[in-house]
Protein backbone atom coordinates (compact mmCIF):
# COMPACT_ATOMS: atom_id res chain seq x y z
CA UNK A 1 0.00 0.00 0.00
CA UNK A 2 1.30 3.41 -0.93
CA UNK A 3 1.87 5.87 1.87
CA UNK A 4 -1.28 7.90 2.28
CA UNK A 5 -1.07 11.50 3.27
CA UNK A 6 -3.62 12.85 5.71
CA UNK A 7 -4.34 16.49 6.42
CA UNK A 8 -5.00 17.52 10.00
CA UNK A 9 -6.62 20.95 10.05
CA UNK A 10 -5.93 22.90 13.24
CA UNK A 11 -7.98 26.05 13.54
CA UNK A 12 -9.14 28.29 12.05
CA UNK A 13 -9.95 30.19 15.25
CA UNK A 14 -7.88 30.92 18.32
CA UNK A 15 -10.52 31.64 20.91
CA UNK A 16 -8.03 33.23 23.32
CA UNK A 17 -5.63 35.25 21.23
CA UNK A 18 -6.09 37.95 18.64
CA UNK A 19 -4.66 35.92 15.81
CA UNK A 20 -6.87 33.19 14.47
CA UNK A 21 -4.57 30.97 12.52
CA UNK A 22 -5.29 27.91 10.49
CA UNK A 23 -2.63 25.24 10.46
CA UNK A 24 -2.97 22.36 8.03
CA UNK A 25 -0.70 19.57 9.12
CA UNK A 26 0.13 17.16 6.33
CA UNK A 27 0.98 13.85 7.95
CA UNK A 28 2.17 10.47 6.76
CA UNK A 29 1.32 8.03 9.48
CA UNK A 30 2.26 9.93 12.61
CA UNK A 31 4.96 12.04 11.05
CA UNK A 32 4.36 15.64 10.00
CA UNK A 33 5.71 16.17 6.49
CA UNK A 34 4.38 19.61 5.64
CA UNK A 35 2.61 22.55 7.22
CA UNK A 36 0.37 25.07 5.55
CA UNK A 37 -0.52 28.26 7.38
CA UNK A 38 -3.51 30.42 6.60
CA UNK A 39 -4.22 33.64 8.42
CA UNK A 40 -6.67 36.48 7.99
CA UNK A 41 -9.76 34.94 9.56
CA UNK A 42 -10.15 37.86 11.87
CA UNK A 43 -8.51 40.74 10.04
CA UNK A 44 -9.80 43.83 11.80
CA UNK A 45 -8.29 46.54 9.62
CA UNK A 46 -6.68 48.31 12.56
CA UNK A 47 -4.19 50.10 10.31
CA UNK A 48 -7.07 51.56 8.33
CA UNK A 49 -8.97 52.47 11.51
CA UNK A 50 -5.88 54.24 12.88
CA UNK A 51 -5.88 56.57 9.88
CA UNK A 52 -9.19 57.94 11.14
CA UNK A 53 -8.12 58.56 14.74
CA UNK A 54 -6.08 61.27 16.40
CA UNK A 55 -2.66 60.54 17.89
CA UNK A 56 -4.16 60.61 21.38
CA UNK A 57 -6.78 58.02 20.48
CA UNK A 58 -4.46 55.60 18.70
CA UNK A 59 -2.84 54.14 21.86
CA UNK A 60 -6.29 53.00 23.00
CA UNK A 61 -6.98 51.38 19.65
CA UNK A 62 -3.67 49.55 19.35
CA UNK A 63 -3.85 48.46 22.98
CA UNK A 64 -6.76 46.26 21.89
CA UNK A 65 -4.65 44.37 19.35
CA UNK A 66 -3.47 41.93 21.99
CA UNK A 67 -5.02 41.09 25.32
CA UNK A 68 -1.90 39.52 26.78
CA UNK A 69 0.89 41.94 25.93
CA UNK A 70 -1.55 44.81 25.76
CA UNK A 71 0.92 47.60 26.51
CA UNK A 72 3.46 46.50 23.88
CA UNK A 73 1.62 48.04 20.96
CA UNK A 74 0.85 51.41 22.58
CA UNK A 75 4.45 51.43 23.87
CA UNK A 76 5.84 51.17 20.33
CA UNK A 77 3.06 53.38 18.96
CA UNK A 78 3.67 56.37 21.21
CA UNK A 79 7.38 56.10 20.51
CA UNK A 80 6.67 56.28 16.78
CA UNK A 81 4.64 59.45 17.36
CA UNK A 82 7.41 60.92 19.55
CA UNK A 83 9.92 60.01 16.84
CA UNK A 84 7.94 62.09 14.34
CA UNK A 85 7.91 65.06 16.71
CA UNK A 86 11.47 64.47 17.92
CA UNK A 87 10.59 65.03 21.58
CA UNK A 88 12.28 63.66 24.68
CA UNK A 89 9.98 62.49 27.44
CA UNK A 90 10.71 63.02 31.16
CA UNK A 91 12.99 60.52 32.89
CA UNK A 92 10.28 59.44 35.29
CA UNK A 93 7.93 58.58 32.44
CA UNK A 94 10.70 56.51 30.89
CA UNK A 95 11.14 54.47 34.05
CA UNK A 96 7.39 53.97 34.41
CA UNK A 97 7.18 52.75 30.82
CA UNK A 98 10.08 50.39 31.32
CA UNK A 99 8.52 49.06 34.50
CA UNK A 100 5.18 48.40 32.78
CA UNK A 101 6.91 46.71 29.85
CA UNK A 102 8.86 44.37 32.09
CA UNK A 103 6.02 43.56 34.47
CA UNK A 104 4.04 42.62 31.41
CA UNK A 105 6.82 40.31 30.26
CA UNK A 106 6.68 38.52 33.62
CA UNK A 107 2.95 37.92 33.40
CA UNK A 108 3.07 36.95 29.73
CA UNK A 109 5.88 34.42 30.19
CA UNK A 110 4.15 32.91 33.23
CA UNK A 111 0.99 32.59 31.16
CA UNK A 112 2.89 30.80 28.39
CA UNK A 113 4.61 28.54 30.91
CA UNK A 114 1.24 27.51 32.28
CA UNK A 115 -0.19 26.83 28.84
CA UNK A 116 2.87 24.83 27.81
CA UNK A 117 2.43 22.70 30.92
CA UNK A 118 -1.24 22.25 30.10
CA UNK A 119 -0.51 21.00 26.58
CA UNK A 120 2.10 18.57 27.82
CA UNK A 121 -0.30 17.17 30.41
CA UNK A 122 1.36 18.87 33.36
CA UNK A 123 -1.66 20.53 34.82
CA UNK A 124 0.24 21.22 38.02
CA UNK A 125 2.62 23.46 36.10
CA UNK A 126 -0.37 25.18 34.54
CA UNK A 127 -2.10 25.90 37.83
CA UNK A 128 1.04 26.87 39.69
CA UNK A 129 2.29 29.20 36.95
CA UNK A 130 -1.06 30.94 36.83
CA UNK A 131 -1.21 31.11 40.60
CA UNK A 132 2.09 33.02 40.61
CA UNK A 133 0.86 35.20 37.74
CA UNK A 134 -2.09 36.40 39.78
CA UNK A 135 -0.14 38.75 42.12
CA UNK A 136 1.41 40.34 39.00
CA UNK A 137 -2.05 41.19 37.70
CA UNK A 138 -2.93 42.54 41.15
CA UNK A 139 0.12 44.80 40.89
CA UNK A 140 -1.15 46.09 37.56
CA UNK A 141 -4.50 46.83 39.14
CA UNK A 142 -2.85 48.64 42.04
CA UNK A 143 -0.63 50.76 39.82
CA UNK A 144 -2.70 51.38 36.70
CA UNK A 145 -6.29 50.67 37.74
CA UNK A 146 -6.68 47.72 35.39
CA UNK A 147 -5.57 44.11 35.38
CA UNK A 148 -5.29 44.27 31.61
CA UNK A 149 -5.38 47.07 29.04
CA UNK A 150 -3.62 49.43 31.40
CA UNK A 151 -4.10 52.57 29.31
CA UNK A 152 -0.78 53.93 30.57
CA UNK A 153 0.91 55.07 27.38
CA UNK A 154 0.28 58.46 25.79
CA UNK A 155 2.34 60.40 23.28
CA UNK A 156 4.76 62.41 25.39
CA UNK A 157 4.63 60.35 28.57
CA UNK A 158 2.37 58.18 30.68
CA UNK A 159 -1.15 58.75 31.92
CA UNK A 160 -0.80 57.84 35.57
CA UNK A 161 1.95 58.41 38.08
CA UNK A 162 3.09 55.86 40.64
CA UNK A 163 2.74 56.72 44.31
CA UNK A 164 5.87 56.37 46.43
CA UNK A 165 3.87 54.53 49.11
CA UNK A 166 3.10 51.72 46.67
CA UNK A 167 6.71 51.02 45.74
CA UNK A 168 7.50 48.97 48.87
CA UNK A 169 4.55 46.65 48.24
CA UNK A 170 5.54 46.31 44.59
CA UNK A 171 9.08 45.28 45.49
CA UNK A 172 7.72 42.79 48.01
CA UNK A 173 5.56 41.10 45.37
CA UNK A 174 8.45 41.06 42.90
CA UNK A 175 10.72 39.45 45.48
CA UNK A 176 8.11 36.81 46.19
CA UNK A 177 8.17 35.80 42.52
CA UNK A 178 11.85 34.90 42.48
CA UNK A 179 11.48 31.67 44.46
CA UNK A 180 8.75 30.11 42.30
CA UNK A 181 10.56 31.13 39.12
CA UNK A 182 13.75 29.46 40.30
CA UNK A 183 11.65 26.44 41.24
CA UNK A 184 10.25 26.31 37.68
CA UNK A 185 13.77 26.59 36.31
CA UNK A 186 14.97 23.69 38.43
CA UNK A 187 11.96 21.58 37.49
CA UNK A 188 12.62 22.24 33.81
CA UNK A 189 16.30 21.45 34.10
CA UNK A 190 15.88 18.28 36.13
CA UNK A 191 12.58 16.68 35.10
CA UNK A 192 13.36 13.80 32.75
CA UNK A 193 9.85 13.66 31.27
CA UNK A 194 9.77 17.36 30.51
CA UNK A 195 13.18 16.97 28.90
CA UNK A 196 12.05 13.98 26.86
CA UNK A 197 9.04 15.89 25.57
CA UNK A 198 10.85 19.12 24.74
CA UNK A 199 14.54 18.42 24.14
CA UNK A 200 15.43 18.15 20.46
CA UNK A 201 11.75 18.57 19.56
CA UNK A 202 10.60 21.32 17.20
CA UNK A 203 14.16 22.39 16.52
CA UNK A 204 14.68 25.60 14.63
CA UNK A 205 18.15 26.26 13.28
CA UNK A 206 19.87 29.62 13.52
CA UNK A 207 19.77 30.02 9.74
CA UNK A 208 16.01 29.30 9.66
CA UNK A 209 15.51 32.06 12.23
CA UNK A 210 17.55 34.55 10.20
CA UNK A 211 15.84 33.57 6.93
CA UNK A 212 12.35 33.97 8.31
CA UNK A 213 13.13 36.96 10.49
CA UNK A 214 12.19 35.24 13.74
CA UNK A 215 12.10 37.47 16.81
CA UNK A 216 12.18 37.44 20.57
CA UNK A 217 12.56 34.22 22.57
CA UNK A 218 11.94 32.17 19.42
CA UNK A 219 15.08 33.59 17.82
CA UNK A 220 17.13 33.83 20.99
CA UNK A 221 16.60 30.16 21.79
CA UNK A 222 18.22 29.38 18.42
CA UNK A 223 21.27 31.47 19.14
CA UNK A 224 20.23 34.63 17.30
CA UNK A 225 21.26 37.18 19.88
CA UNK A 226 18.83 40.02 19.12
CA UNK A 227 16.92 42.16 21.57
CA UNK A 228 15.80 45.68 20.69
CA UNK A 229 15.99 46.66 24.36
CA UNK A 230 19.76 46.38 24.05
CA UNK A 231 20.27 46.93 20.30
CA UNK A 232 18.07 50.01 19.93
CA UNK A 233 17.89 51.39 23.48
CA UNK A 234 14.67 53.24 24.24
CA UNK A 235 12.78 54.39 27.35
CA UNK A 236 15.05 53.60 30.33
CA UNK A 237 16.55 50.41 28.91
CA UNK A 238 19.85 52.16 28.29
CA UNK A 239 20.07 52.98 32.00
CA UNK A 240 19.18 49.67 33.64
CA UNK A 241 21.35 46.59 33.80
CA UNK A 242 20.08 43.32 32.36
CA UNK A 243 21.30 40.31 30.44
CA UNK A 244 19.93 39.16 27.11
CA UNK A 245 19.27 35.44 27.44
CA UNK A 246 20.29 33.43 24.40
CA UNK A 247 20.80 29.70 24.04
CA UNK A 248 21.99 27.63 21.11
CA UNK A 249 19.85 24.58 20.57
CA UNK A 250 16.61 26.07 19.21
CA UNK A 251 14.32 23.34 20.53
CA UNK A 252 11.28 23.76 22.75
CA UNK A 253 13.32 23.11 25.87
CA UNK A 254 15.57 26.06 25.06
CA UNK A 255 12.58 28.31 24.39
CA UNK A 256 11.26 27.33 27.80
CA UNK A 257 14.59 28.02 29.51
CA UNK A 258 14.94 31.39 27.75
CA UNK A 259 11.51 32.49 28.93
CA UNK A 260 11.98 31.34 32.51
CA UNK A 261 15.35 33.08 32.77
CA UNK A 262 13.89 36.21 31.20
CA UNK A 263 11.34 36.36 34.02
CA UNK A 264 14.23 36.62 36.48
CA UNK A 265 15.87 39.36 34.39
CA UNK A 266 12.58 41.26 34.19
CA UNK A 267 12.14 41.10 37.96
CA UNK A 268 15.59 42.67 38.31
CA UNK A 269 14.76 45.43 35.79
CA UNK A 270 11.48 46.18 37.59
CA UNK A 271 13.29 46.51 40.91
CA UNK A 272 15.89 48.84 39.41
CA UNK A 273 13.05 50.98 38.04
CA UNK A 274 11.37 51.03 41.47
CA UNK A 275 14.55 52.33 43.10
CA UNK A 276 14.87 55.02 40.45
CA UNK A 277 11.23 56.05 40.74
CA UNK A 278 11.83 57.01 44.37
CA UNK A 279 14.53 59.48 43.24
CA UNK A 280 13.53 60.79 39.82
CA UNK A 281 10.69 63.32 40.09
CA UNK A 282 10.65 65.28 36.85
CA UNK A 283 7.04 64.78 35.84
CA UNK A 284 5.39 62.21 33.65
CA UNK A 285 4.33 64.18 30.61
CA UNK A 286 6.18 66.22 28.00
CA UNK A 287 2.87 67.88 26.98
CA UNK A 288 3.19 67.04 23.35
CA UNK A 289 0.68 69.10 21.40
CA UNK A 290 1.52 69.43 17.72
CA UNK A 291 2.78 66.63 15.55
CA UNK A 292 4.80 68.11 12.67
CA UNK A 293 4.80 66.55 9.19
CA UNK A 294 7.24 63.67 8.95
CA UNK A 295 7.66 60.05 9.76
CA UNK A 296 8.68 58.01 12.75
CA UNK A 297 9.44 54.48 13.85
CA UNK A 298 8.85 53.05 17.32
CA UNK A 299 10.16 49.68 18.43
CA UNK A 300 9.60 47.76 21.64
CA UNK A 301 10.69 44.30 22.70
CA UNK A 302 7.36 42.71 23.56
CA UNK A 303 7.32 39.35 25.39
CA UNK A 304 7.17 37.64 21.98
CA UNK A 305 9.73 39.80 20.18
CA UNK A 306 10.11 43.13 18.49
CA UNK A 307 6.98 45.20 17.87
CA UNK A 308 7.46 47.90 15.25
CA UNK A 309 5.13 50.81 14.52
CA UNK A 310 5.58 53.30 11.71
CA UNK A 311 3.69 56.60 11.49
CA UNK A 312 3.55 59.08 8.64
CA UNK A 313 2.21 62.48 9.52
CA UNK A 314 1.14 65.34 7.24
CA UNK A 315 0.95 67.84 10.09
CA UNK A 316 -2.71 67.25 10.94
CA UNK A 317 -3.82 65.48 14.10
CA UNK A 318 -4.25 62.16 12.32
CA UNK A 319 -1.67 59.95 10.63
CA UNK A 320 -1.70 59.46 6.88
CA UNK A 321 -0.41 55.94 7.32
CA UNK A 322 -0.03 53.81 10.40
CA UNK A 323 1.83 50.52 10.06
CA UNK A 324 1.87 47.86 12.75
CA UNK A 325 4.00 44.73 12.78
CA UNK A 326 3.50 42.28 15.63
CA UNK A 327 6.22 39.73 16.40
CA UNK A 328 3.99 36.74 15.65
CA UNK A 329 3.78 37.92 12.04
CA UNK A 330 7.40 36.85 11.70
CA UNK A 331 7.35 33.99 14.22
CA UNK A 332 4.35 32.04 12.92
CA UNK A 333 5.98 31.15 9.56
CA UNK A 334 8.85 29.52 11.47
CA UNK A 335 6.41 26.75 12.36
CA UNK A 336 6.71 25.60 8.76
CA UNK A 337 10.21 24.44 9.52
CA UNK A 338 9.81 23.60 13.21
CA UNK A 339 7.05 20.96 13.07
CA UNK A 340 8.20 19.05 9.99
CA UNK A 341 9.81 15.74 10.79
CA UNK A 342 8.23 15.32 14.21
CA UNK A 343 5.07 13.50 15.28
CA UNK A 344 1.52 14.75 15.59
CA UNK A 345 1.70 14.48 19.37
CA UNK A 346 4.65 16.88 19.33
CA UNK A 347 2.82 19.33 17.07
CA UNK A 348 0.61 20.68 19.85
CA UNK A 349 3.56 21.90 21.90
CA UNK A 350 5.69 22.90 18.90
CA UNK A 351 3.03 25.19 17.50
CA UNK A 352 2.59 26.63 20.99
CA UNK A 353 6.31 27.11 21.56
CA UNK A 354 6.46 30.39 19.67
CA UNK A 355 3.81 31.62 22.13
CA UNK A 356 0.59 32.15 20.30
CA UNK A 357 -2.04 30.85 22.73
CA UNK A 358 -2.83 27.54 21.26
CA UNK A 359 -6.40 26.82 22.24
CA UNK A 360 -7.57 25.87 18.82
CA UNK A 361 -6.76 22.27 19.71
CA UNK A 362 -10.34 22.22 20.93
CA UNK A 363 -11.48 22.72 17.37
CA UNK A 364 -9.24 20.22 15.69
CA UNK A 365 -10.66 17.50 13.51
CA UNK A 366 -8.59 14.86 11.79
CA UNK A 367 -10.13 14.12 8.41
CA UNK A 368 -9.30 11.08 6.37
CA UNK A 369 -8.25 12.63 3.07
CA UNK A 370 -10.04 10.04 0.93
CA UNK A 371 -13.40 9.82 2.70
CA UNK A 372 -13.52 13.24 4.34
CA UNK A 373 -14.75 11.56 7.51
CA UNK A 374 -13.64 12.92 10.87
CA UNK A 375 -11.50 10.41 12.72
CA UNK A 376 -10.04 12.53 15.46
CA UNK A 377 -11.24 15.54 17.44
CA UNK A 378 -9.33 18.31 19.15
CA UNK A 379 -9.65 16.54 22.45
CA UNK A 380 -7.98 13.54 20.89
CA UNK A 381 -4.99 15.61 19.88
CA UNK A 382 -4.59 16.90 23.42
CA UNK A 383 -5.05 13.33 24.65
CA UNK A 384 -2.32 12.11 22.28
CA UNK A 385 0.08 14.69 23.61
CA UNK A 386 -0.72 13.82 27.22
CA UNK A 387 -0.54 10.09 26.65
CA UNK A 388 2.97 10.48 25.34
CA UNK A 389 3.91 12.31 28.52
CA UNK A 390 2.27 9.65 30.69
CA UNK A 391 4.05 6.90 28.83
CA UNK A 392 7.34 8.62 29.45
CA UNK A 393 6.44 9.18 33.08
CA UNK A 394 6.09 5.43 33.50
CA UNK A 395 9.51 4.96 31.99
CA UNK A 396 11.09 7.40 34.37
CA UNK A 397 9.15 6.48 37.50
CA UNK A 398 12.14 5.38 39.49
CA UNK A 399 14.02 8.60 38.79
CA UNK A 400 10.90 10.67 39.34
CA UNK A 401 10.50 9.26 42.85
CA UNK A 402 13.93 10.47 43.75
CA UNK A 403 13.25 13.90 42.38
CA UNK A 404 9.87 14.63 43.81
CA UNK A 405 9.89 12.97 47.20
Amino acid at each position, binding site marked *: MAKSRTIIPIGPYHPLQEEPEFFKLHVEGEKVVELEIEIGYN*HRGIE*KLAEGLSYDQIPFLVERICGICSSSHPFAGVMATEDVA*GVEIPERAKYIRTFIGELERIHSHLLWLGLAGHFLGYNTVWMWAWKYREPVLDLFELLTGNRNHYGMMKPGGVRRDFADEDIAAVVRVLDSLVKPTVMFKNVALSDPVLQARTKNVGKLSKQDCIDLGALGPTARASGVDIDVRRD*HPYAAYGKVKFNVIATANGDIFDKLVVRVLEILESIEICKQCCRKLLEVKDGIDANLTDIPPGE*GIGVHEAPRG*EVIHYTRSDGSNRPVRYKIRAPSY*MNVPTNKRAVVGYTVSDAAITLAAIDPCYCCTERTVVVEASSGKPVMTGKDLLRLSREKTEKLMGKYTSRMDKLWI
Partner: protein
Amino acid sequence: MADEVVQGLKTRFGAAIIEVYDKSPSRTYITVDPKGLPDVAEYLYKELGCRFSIATGMHMVGGMEILYHFALDKAHRFLNLRVILDPDKPSIESIAARIPATEWIEREMQELLGIEFRNHPDMRHLLLSDDWPTDNHPLRKDWKDWRGGDNGQK
Protein backbone atom coordinates in the same frame (compact mmCIF):
# COMPACT_ATOMS: atom_id res chain seq x y z
CA MET B 1 29.37 52.92 11.49
CA ALA B 2 26.06 53.59 9.84
CA ASP B 3 27.57 56.54 8.00
CA GLU B 4 30.16 54.20 6.55
CA VAL B 5 27.33 51.93 5.51
CA VAL B 6 25.58 54.75 3.69
CA GLN B 7 28.86 55.80 2.07
CA GLY B 8 29.46 52.19 1.06
CA LEU B 9 26.00 51.99 -0.50
CA LYS B 10 26.65 55.14 -2.50
CA THR B 11 29.97 53.95 -3.91
CA ARG B 12 28.66 50.47 -4.62
CA PHE B 13 25.31 51.31 -6.18
CA GLY B 14 25.97 54.84 -7.43
CA ALA B 15 22.95 56.27 -9.20
CA ALA B 16 20.53 53.74 -7.66
CA ILE B 17 20.80 55.65 -4.35
CA ILE B 18 18.72 58.75 -4.99
CA GLU B 19 18.58 60.46 -1.60
CA VAL B 20 19.78 59.87 1.95
CA TYR B 21 18.02 61.53 4.87
CA ASP B 22 19.01 61.12 8.51
CA LYS B 23 15.89 61.78 10.52
CA SER B 24 17.75 61.16 13.77
CA PRO B 25 20.98 59.39 14.79
CA SER B 26 19.12 56.07 14.82
CA ARG B 27 16.78 56.44 11.83
CA THR B 28 18.01 56.77 8.25
CA TYR B 29 15.76 56.91 5.21
CA ILE B 30 17.34 56.07 1.86
CA THR B 31 15.42 56.65 -1.36
CA VAL B 32 16.34 53.99 -3.88
CA ASP B 33 15.59 53.55 -7.55
CA PRO B 34 12.95 50.76 -7.82
CA LYS B 35 15.10 48.92 -10.39
CA GLY B 36 18.05 48.80 -8.04
CA LEU B 37 16.08 47.89 -4.91
CA PRO B 38 16.46 44.07 -4.96
CA ASP B 39 20.26 44.37 -5.12
CA VAL B 40 20.47 47.03 -2.42
CA ALA B 41 18.14 45.04 -0.15
CA GLU B 42 20.11 41.86 -0.70
CA TYR B 43 23.35 43.67 0.02
CA LEU B 44 21.99 45.03 3.33
CA TYR B 45 20.62 41.64 4.32
CA LYS B 46 23.41 39.29 3.22
CA GLU B 47 26.61 41.34 3.32
CA LEU B 48 25.90 43.68 6.22
CA GLY B 49 23.80 41.29 8.28
CA CYS B 50 20.83 43.62 8.57
CA ARG B 51 17.64 42.12 9.93
CA PHE B 52 14.58 42.57 7.73
CA SER B 53 12.03 44.06 10.09
CA ILE B 54 9.01 44.80 7.89
CA ALA B 55 7.92 46.79 4.86
CA THR B 56 5.30 49.54 4.81
CA GLY B 57 3.28 50.34 1.70
CA MET B 58 1.71 53.78 1.48
CA HIS B 59 -0.63 55.43 -0.97
CA MET B 60 0.65 58.99 -0.93
CA VAL B 61 -0.01 62.09 -3.02
CA GLY B 62 3.31 61.73 -4.84
CA GLY B 63 2.88 58.05 -5.65
CA MET B 64 2.82 54.61 -4.15
CA GLU B 65 5.60 54.32 -1.62
CA ILE B 66 7.18 51.26 -0.11
CA LEU B 67 9.50 51.53 2.87
CA TYR B 68 11.62 48.48 3.61
CA HIS B 69 12.68 48.70 7.25
CA PHE B 70 16.03 47.05 7.91
CA ALA B 71 17.50 46.95 11.41
CA LEU B 72 21.26 47.26 11.66
CA ASP B 73 21.37 45.95 15.22
CA LYS B 74 25.10 46.31 15.81
CA ALA B 75 25.00 50.03 14.90
CA HIS B 76 21.71 50.68 16.80
CA ARG B 77 20.11 52.05 13.68
CA PHE B 78 17.17 51.49 11.37
CA LEU B 79 17.96 51.78 7.66
CA ASN B 80 14.78 52.33 5.67
CA LEU B 81 14.84 51.87 1.92
CA ARG B 82 12.19 53.93 0.20
CA VAL B 83 10.96 53.33 -3.32
CA ILE B 84 8.34 55.49 -5.02
CA LEU B 85 6.22 53.80 -7.66
CA ASP B 86 3.67 54.94 -10.19
CA PRO B 87 0.35 55.20 -8.27
CA ASP B 88 -1.76 53.98 -11.20
CA LYS B 89 0.20 50.83 -11.97
CA PRO B 90 2.56 50.21 -9.05
CA SER B 91 4.87 47.32 -9.83
CA ILE B 92 8.20 46.19 -8.43
CA GLU B 93 10.39 43.10 -8.48
CA SER B 94 9.71 40.72 -5.57
CA ILE B 95 12.55 40.14 -3.14
CA ALA B 96 10.91 37.10 -1.50
CA ALA B 97 13.33 34.72 -3.24
CA ARG B 98 16.31 36.61 -1.83
CA ILE B 99 14.86 37.41 1.62
CA PRO B 100 12.30 34.73 2.61
CA ALA B 101 10.97 36.87 5.47
CA THR B 102 9.40 39.26 2.94
CA GLU B 103 7.03 36.67 1.51
CA TRP B 104 4.02 37.48 3.69
CA ILE B 105 4.35 41.25 3.66
CA GLU B 106 4.56 41.32 -0.13
CA ARG B 107 1.36 39.30 -0.31
CA GLU B 108 -0.22 41.72 2.15
CA MET B 109 0.82 44.83 0.20
CA GLN B 110 -0.36 43.24 -3.02
CA GLU B 111 -3.91 42.76 -1.75
CA LEU B 112 -4.25 45.85 0.47
CA LEU B 113 -2.60 48.38 -1.84
CA GLY B 114 -2.58 46.73 -5.24
CA ILE B 115 1.18 46.78 -5.67
CA GLU B 116 2.30 44.12 -8.12
CA PHE B 117 5.30 42.08 -7.00
CA ARG B 118 6.82 40.51 -10.07
CA ASN B 119 8.01 36.90 -9.74
CA HIS B 120 6.61 36.35 -6.25
CA PRO B 121 6.41 32.60 -5.56
CA ASP B 122 2.92 32.49 -4.02
CA MET B 123 0.61 35.43 -4.68
CA ARG B 124 -2.55 34.28 -2.92
CA HIS B 125 -4.55 36.49 -0.55
CA LEU B 126 -3.02 36.66 2.90
CA LEU B 127 -5.49 38.61 5.02
CA LEU B 128 -8.52 39.23 2.82
CA SER B 129 -10.96 36.48 1.98
CA ASP B 130 -10.58 34.55 -1.23
CA ASP B 131 -13.71 36.07 -2.77
CA TRP B 132 -12.47 39.64 -2.30
CA PRO B 133 -12.31 41.35 -5.74
CA THR B 134 -8.80 41.52 -7.14
CA ASP B 135 -9.13 45.21 -8.09
CA ASN B 136 -10.35 46.42 -4.68
CA HIS B 137 -7.57 47.53 -2.32
CA PRO B 138 -8.70 48.75 1.13
CA LEU B 139 -5.59 50.67 2.18
CA ARG B 140 -5.71 52.92 -0.88
CA LYS B 141 -6.92 56.41 -0.18
CA ASP B 142 -9.54 56.22 -2.95
CA TRP B 143 -10.96 52.94 -1.63
CA LYS B 144 -14.69 52.29 -1.97
CA ASP B 145 -16.31 49.35 -0.23
CA TRP B 146 -17.34 47.00 -3.02
CA ARG B 147 -20.13 45.57 -0.86
CA GLY B 148 -21.87 48.96 -0.95
CA GLY B 149 -20.89 50.04 2.56
CA ASP B 150 -20.20 53.63 3.54
CA ASN B 151 -16.51 53.10 4.47
CA GLY B 152 -17.55 53.53 8.10
CA GLN B 153 -18.49 57.18 7.57
CA LYS B 154 -22.09 57.97 8.27
